[in-house]
């Protein structure tokens, strides 16, 4: 403990004395601050001596913990002193940041004193204080006395607090704000919260439109049920049948996730809209009236099913694969037939996967923004209402905040219901024991049901994607089918004259998007899986609250996150707007919950005896994580990496508020094109993005590979 704390002490001191304390103009990593280290990019110590003496306050924490480290002898007392002094330092650091702000945008306590946003020096200093606290906590015997575990918990808690709770506080205070800046109160909140245009059940009880909350709930339940069933059907086909075209199916189940928003909606309109190809074909064939049925609940549902089934599949495939054959063999030895085995053994063991798939489907559906926007018609849902409450003609942040509260309570209810359904049962079947059986094949009826569900679906998806490619090469889809490369040329033109110039309109956003996604993905996977590991394998006080808080950011719709980030990070102490960093951070905390869920599902199947064996052999928790858990987590890592990379490229709702002139993202570019009716270039750009993502995913799959749990040829042949 002493060595760890001492190390962090040194790092903190170095940050205080050597690194530029405040935000560096341009980028820290360009190291231009070397030149100006004595003036505007000075470290805290120079500022403290000069015009900003309050910077001595946080150093107090560091000095006290140094004193604790060298003067206090009793280990318990020393640990206590470290915790207290670290917390004091961190508290003072945050306090001075919040009270002394630049530009007078928030209530300042001191007249006329300002400081810019915190930079690298402040960040490293804060981290050092944080880890001194966590080391102290581990010295008190918490987290099995393991400084690595307490440090990890501390880091994740601090990150979630800064990048989820802190910005959300801005949104939630505005829910209770009274009109005309008259302070806060419940008088306007309550009637608006219970307004009939939110909760009306008119579409169920009679004619009329339902409230947006009811719409969102119905849609979410329908989508979650549908995607879970479809995901399970696909997962069963993959693991329990000898279906021949598995590879093709695999590609088809991945394609919708890597499709940029709006594209599925656009193609559905071009196929099934009132003048869509299929509508016209069948309309003329059978003389049916061509209607606008697509614009409403069923259209949105269809698009969401197409978009989100793969997410359910990704969650389920790991779990279905993980169900140990020995359980199924035991069942069959006890004379159960294949249906009974599936019904009473395999299916219950898949519960964590089913529950997670349902939860993800529900959250994805209610937070989805692109599909309801394109296909919603007069069917309004919460996510679009929130968006238009913020960007509409009458900006109403209070309404947006109230709707967000409702959306949040919907997702949280589902979350609690899921926890209750899973209960406290044990689903671990991958143990250290020898295990060489084969999974039972499905009984014929079930197999054909899976085929009947999945194959038409796959065929439809295939048609959609063939059409996307086709559409990107036609001049004006639906009217002029002359083949042309114009759309690609406009987006991705390259001029080779005096060097190479990327003159196409899309290049800028394309490069930005790829680099931001490439930075965000590994970080997201790391944070997500680390959290999952802590949740499944470690016990510490406040674990439930911890799990809840890490999932919260996923339940908050992107639009709200986007506005909250702009509100919170536009001013010191943390100033991030118009940087690429804010996009990276936003992606990490938006997508982390998927890594967490996937990691939990995969890890709860790995028996604890594996960890115990490792610790018995003298490994600490870091080594166990690295040498035992991680290698068995291949699919979960792959899923987390893939998902976060892809989501960074395809997500739209939060991004729209966070893109800046220098960091423009592909989706924001696409929204502009779709709004302008330039479907050709939008689809061409999407096609390029899809191909790029596909290449990256295949590369990842090859690099990470599959975990080898047992014999590979373990399917029972019939």
């Amino acid at each position, binding site marked *: 403990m002493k060595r760890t704390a001492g190390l962090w002490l040194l790092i903190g001191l170095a940050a205080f004395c050597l690194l530029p304390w405040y935000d560096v103009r341009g980028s820290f990593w360009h190291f231009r601050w070397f030149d100006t280290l004595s003036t505007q990019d000075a470290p805290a110590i120079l500022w403290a001596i000069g015009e900003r003496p309050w910077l001595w306050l946080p150093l107090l924490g560091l000095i006290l913990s140094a004193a604790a480290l060298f003067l206090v002898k009793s280990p318990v007392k020393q640990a206590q002193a470290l915790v207290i002094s670290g917390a004091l330092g961190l508290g003072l650091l945050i306090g001075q940041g919040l009270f002394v702000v630049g530009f007078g945008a928030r209530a300042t306590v001191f007249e006329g004193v300002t400081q810019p946003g915190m930079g690298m020096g402040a960040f490293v200093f804060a981290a050092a204080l944080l880890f001194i606290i966590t080391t102290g906590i581990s010295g008190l015997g918490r987290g099995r006395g393991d400084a690595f575990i307490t440090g990890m918990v501390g880091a994740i808690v601090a990150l979630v607090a800064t990048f989820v709770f802190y910005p959300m506080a801005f949104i939630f205070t505005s829910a209770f704000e009274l009109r005309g800046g008259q302070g806060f109160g419940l008088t306007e909140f309550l009637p608006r919260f219970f307004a009939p245009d939110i909760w009306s059940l008119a579409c169920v009880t009679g004619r009329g439109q339902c409230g947006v909350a009811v719409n969102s709930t119905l849609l979410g339940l329908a989508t979650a049920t549908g995607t879970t069933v479809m995901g399970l059907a696909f997962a069963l086909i993959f693991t329990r049948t000898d279906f021949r075209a598995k590879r093709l199916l695999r590609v088809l189940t991945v394609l919708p996730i890597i499709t940029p928003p709006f594209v599925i909606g656009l193609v559905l309109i071009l196929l099934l*809209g009132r003048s869509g190809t299929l509508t016209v074909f069948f309309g003329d064939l059978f003389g049916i009236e061509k209607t606008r049925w697509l614009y409403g609940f069923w259209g949105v549902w269809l698009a969401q099913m197409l978009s989100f089934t793969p997410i359910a599949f990704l969650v389920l495939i790991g779990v279905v694969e993980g169900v140990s054959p020995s359980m199924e063999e035991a069942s069959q030895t006890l004379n159960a037939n294949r249906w009974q085995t599936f019904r009473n053994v395999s299916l219950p063991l898949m519960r964590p996967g089913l529950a997670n798939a349902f939860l993800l489907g529900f959250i994805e559906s209610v937070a989805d923004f692109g599909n309801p926007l394109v296909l919603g018609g007069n069917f309004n849902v919460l996510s679009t209402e929130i968006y238009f409450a913020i960007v509409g003609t009458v900006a109403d942040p209070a309404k947006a905040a109230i709707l967000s509260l409702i959306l949040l309570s919907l997702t949280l209810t589902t979350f609690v219901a899921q926890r209750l359904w899973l209960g406290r049962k044990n689903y671990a079947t991958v143990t250290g024991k020898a295990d060489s059986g084969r999974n039972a094949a499905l009984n014929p009826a079930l197999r054909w049901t899976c085929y009947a569900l999945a194959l038409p679906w796959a065929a439809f998806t295939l048609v959609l994607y063939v059409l996307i490619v086709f559409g990107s090469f036609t001049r004006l889809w639906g009217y002029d089918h002359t083949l042309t490369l114009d759309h690609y040329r406009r987006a991705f033109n390259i001029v080779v004259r005096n060097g190479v110039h990327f003159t196409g309109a899309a290049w800028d956003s394309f490069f930005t998007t790829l680099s931001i996604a490439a930075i965000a993905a590994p970080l997201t996977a790391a944070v997500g899986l680390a959290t999952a590991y802590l949740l499944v394998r470690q016990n510490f006080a406040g674990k439930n609250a911890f799990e809840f808080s890490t999932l919260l950011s996923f339940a908050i719709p992107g639009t709200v996150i986007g506005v909250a980030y702009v509100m919170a990070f536009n001013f010191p102490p943390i100033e991030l707007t118009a940087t690429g960093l804010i996009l990276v951070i936003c992606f990490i905390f938006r997508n982390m919950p998927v890594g967490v869920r996937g990691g939990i599902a995969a890890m709860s199947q790995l028996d604890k005896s594996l960890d115990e064996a490792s610790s018995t052999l003298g490994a600490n928790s870091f080594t166990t994580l690295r040498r035992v858990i991680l290698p068995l987590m291949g699919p979960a890592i792959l899923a987390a990496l893939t998902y976060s990379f892809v989501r960074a490229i395809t997500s739209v709702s939060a991004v729209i508020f966070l893109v800046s002139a220098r960091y423009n993202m592909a989706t924001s570019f696409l929204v502009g094109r779709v709004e302008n009716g330039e479907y050709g270039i939008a689809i061409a750009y999407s096609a390029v993005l899809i191909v790029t993502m596909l290449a990256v995913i295949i590369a990842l799959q090859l690099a990470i590979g599959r975990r080898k749990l047992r014999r590979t040829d373990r399917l029972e042949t019939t």
Partner: protein
Amino acid sequence: MKGTSASAIALAAALMASAASAQSLDVVCSNEQAWCDLMAQNFRIDTGIDVAMVRKSTGEVLAQIRAEAGNPKVDVWWGGTGDPHLIAANEGLTTASGVDTSELLGWAQNMADMTEGRAIGAHVGLLGIFYNTELLAQKGMPVPSCWRDLTRPEYAGEITLSNPQSSGTAYTQLATLVQLFGEDEAFSLLGEIARNVNQNTRSGSAPGRMVARGESTISVGFMHDMVNLKKQGFPVEIVSPCEGTGYETGAVSIINGTPNFDAAKVWVEYVLSAEAQSRGLEVGVYNIPSHPAATTDPEAPDMASVKLIDYDFATYGSSEMREHLLERWGVEIRSQGGNFEE
């Protein structure tokens, strides 16, 4: 380790050398993407000032600059309907550029006068009715030529409008009808039209696109968007309503508190120049530019051939009037129509 630090220093030196370019400008643009890109590209070539451009709808821009008030991350806002520019000017979110407007057309100068130079008119878009010729012929429906025609029972379920609570286009339409017929009559007219409406879209340009693609038959929107769709090859026709029609004024504003005011002023001068405005035709921009010397397309609508109302921007751009009209629209129109079910 030694190798990495050496290369890091070399890299840093290289970056320092390349960072010599003096001025740079962050522009947020609410026009069509291609037009935004082209203007930025030309500006870069002609002035040597580096421009970073992002496209956002006016609602998004207003939300953003409100959130960023006092510490803006963009320098100039160019394009979009004029009302949000007026709101921004009223709220002090934008600042006077001091650019000379005396050469511009009258309506552009009016806008500058009204906002004390904070927002200057850059282009005008006229409202019109738009229909799909194929669908109209198929169903044997008459051709609409006036606002009142939209109430005809033959059009039941065939008209798509946009929602004024989210779209500037739709608000312009609402304000136009109120100015044409008086408030009460305008609302009773809108109520009758609402019975024919199949959808109130969020975006103001969506109805036009839906008509072009044959998803709907008749829509209302800005004529310059419609000219663009027609030129793309869709079977559509544009009508200028017989009672007269309203218009929007697109504007350019400098964000209050920008650190790059000088470069921003150069941008404002640039986008108001005849040469810069004339280039819009290259990318299918058919609205009416504010510089009288800028060239226009013969097929594009022009203010002389269309019967125009005297649009009262001061009254209908004010937030009280806007809130009043939108609330009345929400109560009377949205509840009774606009949700035609098939």
